[in-house]
């Protein structure tokens, strides 16, 4: 469903992706871990072309992302994204945030979009906040609205870029619960997170990145107990200890 073949990416003199090879199949839930600056975030942002790639091949849902002729907006409809900083639109209510893309991109009627938004807010557990503006919501609630917003376009793939790093413990759980349900329903997901508990329960693969390369790509079962690579082992000992 997603295929990276020798993908490279530079930011000026910085070589941030150094030959990424990765295949993600339908219904895969891939957790990506690694130290900051390892290129995790850049890698998943190339999937919906928020970052263009310099060389290599990247095929997402049958579309070659790096082709000049590719319809980026169409590609992005099929790939939902959730950001660390939520990025809700503060001038819109929770429901309006969810309705925006269906209305503008799909041309859905207001009533229909509203119905869909309510169903999604129900799914993430905060229907009662539908008409609140984001500033009135807690971080966890905001992030759940952001998930609902991404789901509103019926994406086939969901990308999560450290969705819980800006939250405190209580709120982390409510967001992870929603993500776990999504995984259970068979959504194809790429998740950057250091939440080992979530990775164990919900993911089937773990990818460890460092310095722009994928160092290890293993089934979840066993990875946390016995990573093959030394660098992954060192990293895990740091992450799990706290």
């Amino acid at each position, binding site marked *: 469903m997603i295929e990276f073949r020798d993908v490279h990416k530079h930011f000026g003199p910085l070589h941030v992706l150094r030959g990424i090879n990765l295949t993600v199949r339908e219904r895969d839930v891939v957790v990506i871990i690694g130290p900051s600056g390892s290129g995790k975030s850049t890698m998943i942002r190339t999937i*919906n072309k928020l970052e263009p790639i310099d060389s290599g091949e990247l095929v997402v849902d049958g579309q070659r992302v790096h082709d000049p002729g590719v319809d980026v907006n169409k590609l992005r409809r099929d790939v939902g994204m959730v950001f660390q900083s939520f990025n809700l639109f503060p001038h819109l209510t929770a429901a309006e945030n969810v309705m925006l893309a269906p209305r503008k*991109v799909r041309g859905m009627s207001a009533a229909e979009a509203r119905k869909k938004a309510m169903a999604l807010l129900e799914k993430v557990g905060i229907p009662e906040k539908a008409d609140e503006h984001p500033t009135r919501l807690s971080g966890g609630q905001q992030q759940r609205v*952001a998930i609902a917003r991404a789901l509103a376009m019926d994406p086939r793939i969901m990308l999560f870029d450290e969705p819980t790093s800006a939250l405190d413990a209580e709120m982390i759980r409510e967001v992870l619960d929603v993500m776990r349900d999504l995984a259970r329903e068979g959504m194809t997901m790429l998740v950057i997170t250091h939440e080992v508990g979530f990775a164990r329960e919900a993911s089937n693969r773990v990818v460890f990145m460092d310095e722009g390369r994928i160092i290890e790509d293993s089934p979840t079962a066993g990875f946390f107990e016995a990573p093959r690579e030394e660098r992954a082992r060192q990293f895990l000992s740091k992450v799990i200890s706290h």
Partner: protein
Amino acid sequence: MRPDTWPMFLNPAIWGFLFEGLRETIYIALASVAVSFPVGLLFALGRLSRRRWMRWPSTFYIEGVRALPVLLLIAYFGIKGSALFRPIFGQDFELPLFWAGVLGLSMYTSAVLAEIIRAGIVSLPRGQSEAARALGLSHAQTMRSVILPQALRLMVPAMMAQLTTVIKDTSLVGTIGVFELLRQGRTIYTQFFNPVEVLLIVATVYFVICFALSRASRRFELGYTPRAARIKIQDIALRDQAA
């Protein structure tokens, strides 16, 4: 202040005369804002465009016009306004001085508004446009549905503050012969030789309007306005407080 100069203000005709000027002042200000807002928005988007042929002329217009005294623009259109439009409207066309003044004032105000709008747009966190683009919205849709509604709301206070500047600047249009408030006041005091009294009254009228507007603008400060944006916009406003 001679005591005999105040009783004349008991004559309602004097107030009627000043009121006519005030009405003209308000018309000039409203017309200028109505013209300069869309023009300013266009130039702001032009300056943010990725296309060089849009970006360069927009930048040139904004920076060039802002570097000029607004009175110079008004004086120029006062003298040459009619001639400029004759190729379009025919040899007999006379541009009313009112519109010459509005033209000069709008040219300047549009450049200022363009900078305010641009500052509002670039001050929004990058995540906003990224999130919109990630949802599949096009560049134009992102601007229209996500960026501009936020940026424009962010700018309401700055724009209202700019309106007070525009109202003060209408007094410059009097120099090309439009009978706005200050000009009406000058007509009175050249008749009655009482500039102190008249200017105090006229200044009070400007003060009441502008003070009320700047007070009101503060009420529109929004909770989610990024601090940096507020400061940046204030700076622009500061530089462009003409006259």
